[in-house]
């Protein structure tokens, strides 16, 4: 019996779909061109500055990968900034006992935070917004008292080189970390059973359960992954700044969420793209950089950043015409 949709149009449809998700690259390229032209005189294209953007986006991108998993699973994690700070302080405090101990310790602390979040969300069933708001306060409180509000210096050349400050040839180590995390995250989300389970759990929790996916376990894992990546970000911050302090990460939440959502991940779950989040991170870092290079004052920077965000997402996710469903 004939089904009426011929084959050709179907592929056309997927072409349209691809075209939509390609828009983020177009926006990135467009902004890059814009800055390249207008800020040519001001060193935007200098190798040094491009490295700046790479380094600056690296931190955002690493955190954005974890958040991509969390949002894809229709959860949220407000505590990851606090984990960044706690991990940074932990690694800095433990460094005198050796690099491996310190890094392992910081990751363990991150894992612990993730497990607590995950257990409260998946076992007790509290909305992750409230769980992570609560744990964020607790973790920040702990970081503040552990560090006594002091900056903890990092005095370990190898550590600093490996985690954030070094360059291999012209390439910052930070950039390599980013590529590693992004590549891993991309593959895991797209090409593993776990990634599919994350997207399915976020898209339709009940359907995922019926299909045999342990949704509670998925939520546990995404929160754990996010906390681990936050801890890695904290370690990298410590390496990059040669110090750690309780305020680290506190302004990153909005930046990271924005990067992830600009990149096409849905705030309410079911759709996520690590590559998109990378582009989001690059765009955010590039805009920051460009606005400063323009020599604008801070009010103007705020306004222009807002305008750029809205224009960018109008292009990538807006309908640009009267909705008609």
């Amino acid at each position, binding site marked *: 019996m004939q089904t009426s949709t011929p084959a050709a149009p179907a592929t056309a449809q997927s072409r349209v779909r691809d075209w939509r998700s390609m828009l983020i690259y177009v926006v990135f390229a467009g902004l890059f061109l814009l800055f390249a032209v207008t800020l040519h005189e*001001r*060193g*935007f294209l*200098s190798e*040094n*500055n491009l490295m*700046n953007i790479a*380094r*600056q986006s690296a*931190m955002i991108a690493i955190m954005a990968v974890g958040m991509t998993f969390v949002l894809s699973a229709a959860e949220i994690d407000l505590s990851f900034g606090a984990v960044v700070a706690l991990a940074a302080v932990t690694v800095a405090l433990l460094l005198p006992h050796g690099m491996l101990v310190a890094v392992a310790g910081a990751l363990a602390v991150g894992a612990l935070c993730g497990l607590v979040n995950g257990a409260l969300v998946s076992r007790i069933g509290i909305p992750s917004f409230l769980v992570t708001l609560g744990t964020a306060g607790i973790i920040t409180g702990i970081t503040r008292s552990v560090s006594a*509000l*002091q*900056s*903890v*210096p990092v005095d370990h050349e190898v550590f600093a080189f490996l985690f954030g*400050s070094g360059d291999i040839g012209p390439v910052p180590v930070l950039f390599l970390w980013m590529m590693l995390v992004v590549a891993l995250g991309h593959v895991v989300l797209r090409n593993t059973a776990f990634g599919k389970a994350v997207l399915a759990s976020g898209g339709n929790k009940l359907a995922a359960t019926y299909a045999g996916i342990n949704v509670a376990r998925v939520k546990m894992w995404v929160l754990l992954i996010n906390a681990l990546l936050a801890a890695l970000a904290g370690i990298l*911050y410590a390496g*990059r*700044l*040669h*110090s750690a*302090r*309780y*305020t*680290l990460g*506190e*302004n990153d939440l909005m930046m990271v969420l924005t990067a992830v959502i600009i990149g096409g991940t849905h705030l309410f779950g079911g759709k996520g793209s690590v590559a998109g989040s990378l582009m989001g991170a690059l765009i955010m870092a590039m805009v*920051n*950089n460009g606005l*400063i*290079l323009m*020599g604008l*004052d*801070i009010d103007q*920077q705020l306004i222009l950043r807002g305008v750029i965000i809205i224009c960018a997402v109008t292009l990538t996710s807006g309908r640009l015409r009267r909705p008609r469903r």
Partner: protein
Amino acid sequence: QPLSRGPHGEQPTPYAAVVLKASDIAALKRKPYRAALVMHTSSDFSSALIAGARKGFAELGISVVAVTDAGMDPQKQRTDLETVMALKPDLIVSLVIDPVSGAIAFRPVVAAGVKLVFISNVPQGLVHGRDYAGIVTDDYLAMGQTAADMLASSIKGKGDVALIYHAANYFVTNQRDAAVKQALARYPGIRVVATRGISNQQDGEVIASAILTQYPKLSAIYAPWDSIAEGVTAAARAAGRRDLKVVTMDLGAANALDMVKGGNMAGIVSDLPYEMGQTVARMGGLALLNRPAPAFVTVDAVRIDSANLSTQWQRALNRELPAAVVQAVARKGAR
């Protein structure tokens, strides 16, 4: 006489002692020097300082190519610094949020031969003369002491007081708060019954309300800066405590108005941000000419009450007293 000492015990130099000769200015004007301001955050203080610096730089023919706001985040400040370096400035002026991480952040700047003038504080390990030209700062010890004196005199040296302090790691406020506490200890009639930390400047009223509930006989409260003091006076009003005295740092129109109208605000201590900005510019000029500059320059701590408000306001912020306050002053004078 300035009280504060530099990070390595340097003697303070009054800001007026930093001067440029006419020939220096001409020399500066011959070259298109570029300066960037890498600030900690934005506030009335920082904008007055930036205005002073812009004015000062303009007089020296130095162009300001970038101003950044790190939102109190050392990591963002490092990022800002890296970005600003792409503009190849000859001079960077910075208020460093975290001297520990600043040590690393400024290393490449020093290595690139960019001249540095710091505000308030200096990254660890940098050496005056070799790495940076000097520090320009408010005289935080004098500010703290002045605030304590005003607080004491407002309650005639006797009574219970509460201190609200900035519960964060930030050099300037930490120094000022500590100085207040220290200076108050010298008044035998004054008892500090509560010290409460604040980390979020919107919480002034909530904290002050709770303090007033717990210590109904309190005579005065010290608030670390103006926006917190606004909350504290609001709490005093709400509690019907017209007699409570409030002392704070940094000028703000609402506090000034309250003070003029005889409200709770007993006195304000201010530094001279506009002068700081101009001084920073002059220090920068010296640095660009490779002249020696003083290591540690302070501006005065000014004691402001309703009598000297108009003149000191103008001096500190280089702008007119707001109309509402002027009218209140006039009304008061008429009475």
